[in-house]
């Protein structure tokens, strides 16, 4: 009963986080769609002219293709995160999807969320899927969105490595403080995720790295 209530709480918190991320990412989805449509319109307009050289449409076909790829990645991530997570959850797979949506939620177009996995083959974890999503998305979204920040900033780095019986994910961005939001702390901890914040840098550029530990399955 208690476990079920905890799972429901995590599911509710995760859905709220996803909703927040998608609300902000919708602009990126529309931009990708817009980019594809506008470039396709150029192609349509130019292709209608009999003497239009291929060079006149090729760059726009490339641009439309890139925007459709971007759109596909976003839609894939949204659809996957909208479904129930397959158990045991994979930390790396979940991280990639969460990073895609959080990156699209940034206040500026070329915000970067970089995922570095290294040689890690598998990162299956004993932590329930929604808890993994919540533990990754809650701090990452705060880090990306910031507090009303509209200036371009340093990329957010998500580095995954194998620990002792755990998979460790480090979230960091130069000059910013990564932290588990208070409202998520209890639920994430109860689900078996551990984290520690380590401070580095001088007074002017204080940076918090957040190390998240997910026990292996």
């Amino acid at each position, binding site marked *: 009963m208690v476990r079920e209530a905890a799972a429901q709480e995590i599911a509710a918190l995760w859905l709220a986080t996803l909703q927040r991320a998608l609300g902000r990412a*919708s*602009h990126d989805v*529309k*931009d990708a*769609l*817009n*980019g*594809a*449509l*506008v*470039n396709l*319109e*150029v192609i*349509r*307009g*130019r292709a209608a002219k009999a003497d239009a050289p291929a060079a006149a449409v090729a*760059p*726009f076909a490339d*641009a*439309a293709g*890139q*925007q459709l790829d971007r759109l596909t990645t976003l839609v894939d991530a949204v659809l996957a995160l909208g479904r129930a997570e397959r158990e045991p959850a994979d930390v790396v797979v979940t991280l990639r999807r969460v990073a895609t949506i959080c990156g699209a939620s940034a*206040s*500026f*177009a*070329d915000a970067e969320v970089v995922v570095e996995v290294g040689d890690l083959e598998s990162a299956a974890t004993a932590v329930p899927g929604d808890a993994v999503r919540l533990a990754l998305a809650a701090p990452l979204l705060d880090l990306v969105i910031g507090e009303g920040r*509209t*200036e*371009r900033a340093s990329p957010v780095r998500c580095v995954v490595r194998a620990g002792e019986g755990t998979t460790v994910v480090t979230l960091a961005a130069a000059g910013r403080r990564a932290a588990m939001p208070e409202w998520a702390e209890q639920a994430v901890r109860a689900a078996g995720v551990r984290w520690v914040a380590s401070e580095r840098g001088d007074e002017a550029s204080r940076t918090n790295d957040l190390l998240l530990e997910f026990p292996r399955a």
Partner: protein
Amino acid sequence: MKQAKILIADDEAAITTGLSAILEDAGFSVDVVADGQKALDALSAERYGVVLADLKMPRVDGLTLLRELQQRQIPTECIIITGQATVDSAVQAMQQGAYDYIEKPLNAEKLNRLKALIPKALDKYQVQQTNRELSSKLEGLTHYGELTGQSESMRSVYQVIEAVAPSTASVLILGESGTGKELVARALHTKSDRAKGPFFALNCAALPKEILENELFGHEKGAFTGSTNEKPGAFEMSSGGTIFLDEMAEMSPDIQVKLLRAIETRQVRRLGGKKEINVDIRILAATNKNLQKAIADGELREDLYYRLAVVEIDLPPLRERAQDIQLLANEFLARFAQQNSKTNTGFEDAAWDWIMAYHWPGNVRELKNAVERAVIMSRGSTIGPHDIIPRHLRSGGEMPAALTIAVGATAAEARQQLVLRTFASTAGDAARTGKVLGISEQDVRTEMLALVTEGSAAGSDKSTNGVQAAQKPSPTAVSRPASPVKPGKTGKRNEPVPAPSRAASKKSTIKKGR
């Protein structure tokens, strides 16, 4: 006419590239920037008829860009492209002056709508641009530097300034007190190659002889008791620029000698100094004195006069450029209403009557002060005669009103002038005018009405038809007989008289126009 360019402001390169290609294919000339700040920079450097701005951009977003465009009064039409299709953002954009907004994603239908919107926005921009240019040209007809006036005499002054300013010739500016001699001097300086150099104005009448000499030429340390430091004079300080000597005819003869020498040699020697200091100056001088008389009386050296008066600019008194009175009064009203946070919108007809009939001995300065005082004292939205007429003139007896009737003037013209001046001196009180002159109130109205009618038909030449004021010539109301003289209620002091005819009434309306 060359079509204005379009500026696209969006941080999505894929969109800006495609959109600019579509618009270029449609025949528009397009530039692209990646954020709102760069859009502002581009708009400050170049004119764009239309800006297509994304609502969400780094640094300066679409709404902030709109606000900045309004605040900086950058002429352009802004179409907001929004991915956040909320009613709020669209309403906000329109409230902040957007021409229109269009919602992402831009599919074929929306792109067609955009392509249809742009020519309309460009048309609007073009019309407003033409209006701005016309306003600017109109401004050029009525203003020159800080000078205001659209009369023929003032336009002649502008032409002389324009022609003389680039030269190094000394200019002597003549005119009564308050006509704007210093403004002419400033315009000459501003329009000259010396504009970046200093402009030094010195009133020769305001300073005792010793101080004036010290101000002009400076002194060395120990030159006189108490001179503990050396001090450069106006000639040195204005080197590379222009020195303006106001009331130059008031200078003592020995300073005139030194001034003449300085003008001839372009060198000055400080008081107590031994060395000559080279100065590169242009000299402008002004006076309200009768210079021929001053030369004849030995008050002004003739050789200095010829040195200073290489070119003479004669500023007409305000009463001789009646068509400028309305322009100036309206400008002063707008300026002082704003300065004093008042909502004055114009002058009442009776106030106009007095303004146009009064001879303004203190010229523009007096008019300016009268309007400022009226704005401060007024309680309603319009300026009435009680606001504008100075208290000391309300009694009517103190207005200098002696007339010289030239030989050859008809009795009717003399009578007309007498009625006009008396009418003005009673602040437009027809009953009192009649009483003072010993004629009926109806006769006063008839004379004034005849003046209006004749003036409308004959124009301003009527003014000098053999009748002139002795000391303070006052042909103002005759040269611009637009005063709506109105019969009606009688006996009340300073009461505006209702319009006698449609013609007169129409005149009055025109006068209030701004």
